[in-house]
């Protein structure tokens, strides 16, 4: 594992990114001032409960916040260019699917039922590569279908003829076949059976080695993240609580109280426990966020200062940053 300081090339840098939803009830700070980077060839895991802003971060990186959301500040830097300044046309021409692609949550259930897999992929390919011929596109599609472990005849099949695992493979192939540098995978294994889930995880690991792409793996499940992510970034209520390497997080030595609680709520199969921990309470209201630390209400080791002032994220050891007053 490379730490900060040993310079590695960065595939993507997010700095002070904010994405707010401007609703009639008020401004929802869904993603509030987050910074992280993605190194070339690494998988960064983004975890958190539902509503913590994981998916919103993914959309923000692609420059397509869902209305009434707007990017309210910050930078998304890829190849020395800040893509938040790009226009919609520029984003479509230069960024989406060429440099960054995304496997959307539940995308496997949204494949157009009247298109064959081939039609579907062909349309995407030709839209992004206007100059390409049909033969070239066909070859590329077959190459990537094979790469994700599907046979050539899938090209002529309709989505309803495929199983969940096969559909997810088609979606992954579609995200990869324009050869982007970065792939955002949003809950790619949720809703699949355990066995299929493990097979898809193996596939993603294999593709990572073969294609050396950088990826952002979004999930709510810390157990899945342990299998796939080189580094983990824990989000809570729109903010980053902790970033650390796989060993640092799952080694469980120094942790943010939230990460500690999340890990405690994830059952281990081979260790019999009598009680599982849970996190009492609910995440804060993002329209009127608390003044201090976002996790104050649910924290088991809170102090007086936590209520007054939110902690900033600070590096406590190489490659490991925590936003908690306990580590100041």
């Amino acid at each position: 594992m490379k730490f900060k300081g040993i310079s590695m090339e960065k595939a993507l840098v997010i700095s002070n990114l904010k994405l707010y939803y401007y609703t009639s009830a008020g401004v929802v700070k869904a993603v509030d001032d987050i910074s992280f980077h993605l190194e070339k060839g690494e998988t960064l895991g983004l975890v958190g409960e539902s509503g913590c802003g994981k998916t919103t971060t993914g959309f923000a990186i692609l420059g397509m916040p869902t209305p009434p959301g707007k990017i309210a500040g910050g930078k998304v830097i890829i190849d020395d260019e800040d893509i938040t300044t790009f226009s919609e046309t520029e984003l479509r021409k230069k960024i989406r699917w060429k440099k960054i692609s995304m496997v959307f949550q539940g995308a496997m259930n949204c494949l157009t039922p009247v298109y064959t897999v081939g039609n579907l992929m062909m349309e995407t390919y030709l839209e992004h590569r206007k100059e390409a011929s049909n033969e070239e596109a066909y070859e590329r599609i077959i190459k990537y279908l094979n790469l994700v472990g599907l046979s050539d005849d899938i090209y002529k099949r309709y989505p309803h003829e495929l199983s969940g695992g096969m559909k997810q493979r088609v979606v992954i192939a579609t995200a990869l076949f324009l050869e982007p540098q970065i792939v955002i995978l949003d809950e790619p294994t949720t809703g699949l059976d355990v066995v299929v889930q493990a097979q898809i995880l193996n596939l993603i690991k294999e593709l990572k080695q073969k294609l050396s792409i950088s990826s952002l793996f979004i999930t709510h499940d810390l157990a899945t993240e342990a299998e796939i992510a080189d580094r983990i970034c824990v989000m809570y209520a729109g903010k980053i609580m902790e970033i650390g390497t796989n060993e640092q997080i799952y080694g469980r030595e120094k942790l943010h109280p939230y990460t500690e609680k999340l890990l405690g709520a994830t059952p281990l199969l081979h260790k019999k426990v009598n009680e599982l921990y849970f996190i009492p309470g609910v995440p804060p209201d993002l329209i009127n966020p608390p003044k201090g630390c976002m996790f104050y209400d649910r924290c088991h080791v809170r102090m007086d200062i936590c209520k007054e002032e939110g902690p900033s994220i600070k590096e406590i050891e190489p490659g490991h940053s925590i936003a908690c007053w306990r580590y100041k």
Partner: protein
Amino acid sequence: MEKNNDFLLEVKNLKKWFPTQHGLSALFLKEKTYVRAVDGISFSVKRGETFCIIGESGSGKTTTGKMIMRLLEPTDGDIIFNGKNVSHIKGDELKEYRRNVQMIFQDPYASMNPRFKIKQVLAEPLVIHKIGDSKKYRDENSKKLLESVKVTPAEEFMDRFPHMLSGGQRQRVSIARGVSLSPALIVADEPVSMIDLSTRAEILAMMKSLKRDFGLTYIYITHDLSTARYFADTIAVMYLGKIVEIGNADDIVDNPIHPYTRVLINAVCEPLPGKVKKMKEINIKGEIPSAAKIPPGCRFHTRCVFADEDCKTFPEPDLMDIGNGHYHSCRRSDDLPKFKF
């Protein structure tokens, strides 16, 4: 041998076959074809135990739950509840049976009438079974139930509509509705699979304490082995409509025999370091066959990496006892490598 009345529920050779032809074609075609969703399963549930049925989608676990609930009529076999055969009861008898057996569904968003207030949701079982005639009694009862599942302040939540509650709160209300008639048995079909991780553990812990308070017996249907180990006493592993292995929860997880159980256990992700560089070992081929075309011989042989010629042709093995209440149905169990995780 334990005495018969130790068992709250006994299921004997239970089957549910769905015909695949309907209407005229069903009359004229000589050979009828069926989807054999549940294909002859037997098990017994002790009083006060948590019995877990685990399997992939399509393994027949929900169909089994629905048959126990008598939402589906069994094609063949017996369901014996409290010493009484309930597999084909009707009318008042069935209503009385359902008072004793309740179900918690997977989706807390879909299992509640959106136009009912929470107090109406909770009073509905009492109305159906004509328990307590005054509104006041029913409101009091709803309040008590909400408090027992920790949806507080109860007075406030009673007048809310389901859409005003979070997923976790709704599932608690479903559980409260499940226990409202003080049933003996609750069939919980994936009760936490749609709940956020941070509250999942809380709901399971609450279900455990309700079990103590109300003297419940659970049938817990899930695909998630790690919660099953925490929550269940006995685990039955289903594959394509049959139980392939059954035993004490710890035995099943630590010492699985059947190749399918092994695959399920190896496939579980655990939050431990040092797994990124390694591939997961998944000893299984292909995908689950259709329940309309169950393979001959051992039904798992098409996907099993240990299967030999005999597995394809020999009649399907019955469950074999290996002691301590642990049964499995693999005829090659002696030739299998030692299980490691």
